[in-house]
């Protein structure tokens, strides 16, 4: 049976992905360029038995999203930079308490209110390091409208599987562009639900991990009465001042992600096998990068595209394969060189690493990337 083809805006595709994944609760606060996600889900959630609420600010939206998940519903919120900054407080709470949920950041330009209607990619480090304290992060960076849908489903799956907040980090260009996409049939994409406890409620320890390092999570109201706190806690969920235990728990949380690197990290490696030059690009910048790589190949240049769909954890295992072989890495991004730092870290001086950086609200063009590729010859 042919799949339904729809001409959708990137933000609308996020809504489709959320519904497909089983999202049944959304709490948000409007902000350009993410607002269409709130608008879309305010209309569609009730049709599938879900609820939408517009909260008083993003602190509250993040809190309510986590609350909804604790009550057993797959929950989501969406925002842009200024709102993301406000979400940081309770995002950290979500990490420490291990509550699955999805946060969409449709990036715009500038710090503070910045360039509200222009694209940006300056929140890539915030997405990993924005909230205080050590914690793992899973951050996905789609590049097409189709991926806006598919990666939203994957974001929910990873959130549920690893019991943690997952960030879908997209930008104004992809959020607002329209492309024809295929709507997956029900059952076509995997949809994962969190592990719930099956033990006697008396024996339930909300932070006792299983072999995969992920503890099963009970819904509030399901007969497993337990305590959740943003203080460091023991396996039984109650606060503890034991620093050694806190350290062990945070390392366990880091490991629940890093030990599943192969399951979590997704990368497109396009024409990389024999590449002397690799363009490392993500999100909207990767669209221009792909075009530049195709054109340069036509000119006979051995160039490839390395495109992370998972930006965090950083795809270093994938990237390391090219270190020592590739002469030059080009990192185009709509910031002043953030992810280039990570590429530098992995390349360790064994190749030239050059950034193409813009924060003027214009996308990086294929021509600009071509120019840098040509300069390499």
């Amino acid at each position, binding site marked *: 049976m042919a799949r339904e083809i729809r001409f959708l805006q990137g933000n609308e595709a996020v809504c489709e992905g959320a519904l497909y994944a089983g999202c*049944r*609760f959304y*709490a948000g606060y409007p902000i350009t360029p993410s607002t269409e996600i709130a608008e879309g889900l305010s209309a569609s959630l*009730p049709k599938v*038995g879900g*609820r939408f*609420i517009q*909260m*008083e*600010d993003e*602190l*509250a939206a993040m*809190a*309510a*999203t*986590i*609350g*909804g*998940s*604790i*009550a*057993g*519903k797959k*929950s989501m919120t969406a925002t842009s930079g200024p709102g993301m900054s406000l979400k940081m*407080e*309770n995002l950290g*709470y979500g990490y420490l308490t291990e509550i699955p949920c999805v946060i969409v950041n449709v990036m715009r330009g500038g710090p503070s209110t910045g360039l509200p209607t222009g694209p940006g990619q300056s929140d890539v480090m915030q997405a990993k390091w924005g909230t205080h304290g050590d914690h793992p992060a899973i951050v996905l960076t789609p590049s097409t409208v189709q991926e806006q849908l598919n990666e939203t489903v994957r974001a929910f799956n990873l959130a549920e599987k690893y019991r943690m907040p997952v960030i879908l980090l997209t930008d104004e260009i992809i959020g607002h562009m329209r492309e024809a996409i295929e709507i997956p049939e029900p059952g076509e994409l995997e949809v994962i639900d969190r592990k719930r406890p099956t033990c006697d409620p008396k024996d339930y320890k909300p932070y006792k991990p299983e072999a995969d390092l992920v503890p099963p999570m009970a*819904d*509030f*109201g*399901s*007969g497993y*009465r*337990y*305590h*959740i*706190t*943003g*203080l460091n806690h023991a396996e039984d969920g*109650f*606060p503890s001042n034991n620093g050694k235990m806190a350290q062990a728990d945070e390392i366990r949380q880091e490991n629940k992600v890093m030990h599943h690197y192969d399951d979590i990290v997704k990368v497109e490696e396009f024409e990389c096998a024999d590449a002397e030059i690799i363009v490392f690009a993500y999100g909207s910048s990767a669209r221009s990068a792909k075009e530049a790589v195709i054109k340069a190949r036509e000119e006979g240049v051995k160039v490839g595209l390395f495109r992370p769909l998972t930006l965090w954890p950083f795809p270093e295992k994938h990237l390391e394969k090219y270190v020592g072989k590739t002469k030059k890495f080009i990192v185009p991004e709509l910031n002043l060189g953030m992810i280039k730092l990570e590429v530098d870290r992995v390349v360790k001086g064994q190749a030239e690493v050059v950034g193409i950086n813009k924060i003027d609200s214009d996308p990086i063009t294929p021509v600009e990337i071509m120019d840098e590729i040509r300069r390499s010859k």
Partner: protein
Amino acid sequence: MAYDYSKYLRAGKIPHIWCPGCGYGIIMKSLIRAIDATGIDKDDIVLTSGIGCASRLPGYMDFNTLHTTHGRSLAFATGVKVANPKLKVIALGGDGDMTAIGGNHFIHACRRNIDITCFVFNNYIYGMTGGQYSPTTPKNSKATTAPYGNADNQFDIAQLAIGAGATFVARTTTYHAVPMEKLIKQALDHKGFSVVEIMAGCPTGYGRKNKQGSPANMILWQKENAVPANKAKEMSEEEMAGKFAIGVLHEVQKAEYVEAYDAQVGLK
């Protein structure tokens, strides 16, 4: 026969962290008796809190308990309630938690009239951090951050709640432990957003600096300055100076948020 609190307390979690003479233990006992009187199943009760001495209470109680971030008790509680309206959701916090850092969540929860019962433990001070002034610290009182006396004006939490749209608002004190239990039960039985402001002494963070004497004296101060709501109505502003009304201050019936939302969007 003495009332047995153990059914609602988590074994092994007592002793609590509160100072000797802190008013919060009295509130916890009244809360337990009131919840018991409602007959609601423990599995269906969600108790949320923010950060502060007051907000440590849920850790001792055998419900679904959620100790959140400073001021956000009601924001988390709102998510829980909207996602599963069958749950009985109770949100509590201190005066700082609910009316300073969480003030925005507080007024909007009142405005929505969502079916959550909210308890604000008002001890006039930031207790947990050692006695800095809060939005309810009386003018001229001393605090560690007001060594010359407090220049700030005070919030009247109950009036704030009424103004913002809460449909049940009451005030009580730790001196009035038995009436408190009845008020808490009324608040729990009320459909919509209910607020009970509970005056409690913080001998450590407030009493000592303001020469209020022993914890017992602080409780007597409550007795002397509390005026029953019906009597307070007949008193002039001057007569009420330094005093506060207790009892049910406001009670109306109004569409509850989740029910109104469901009707609006055609759910169910």
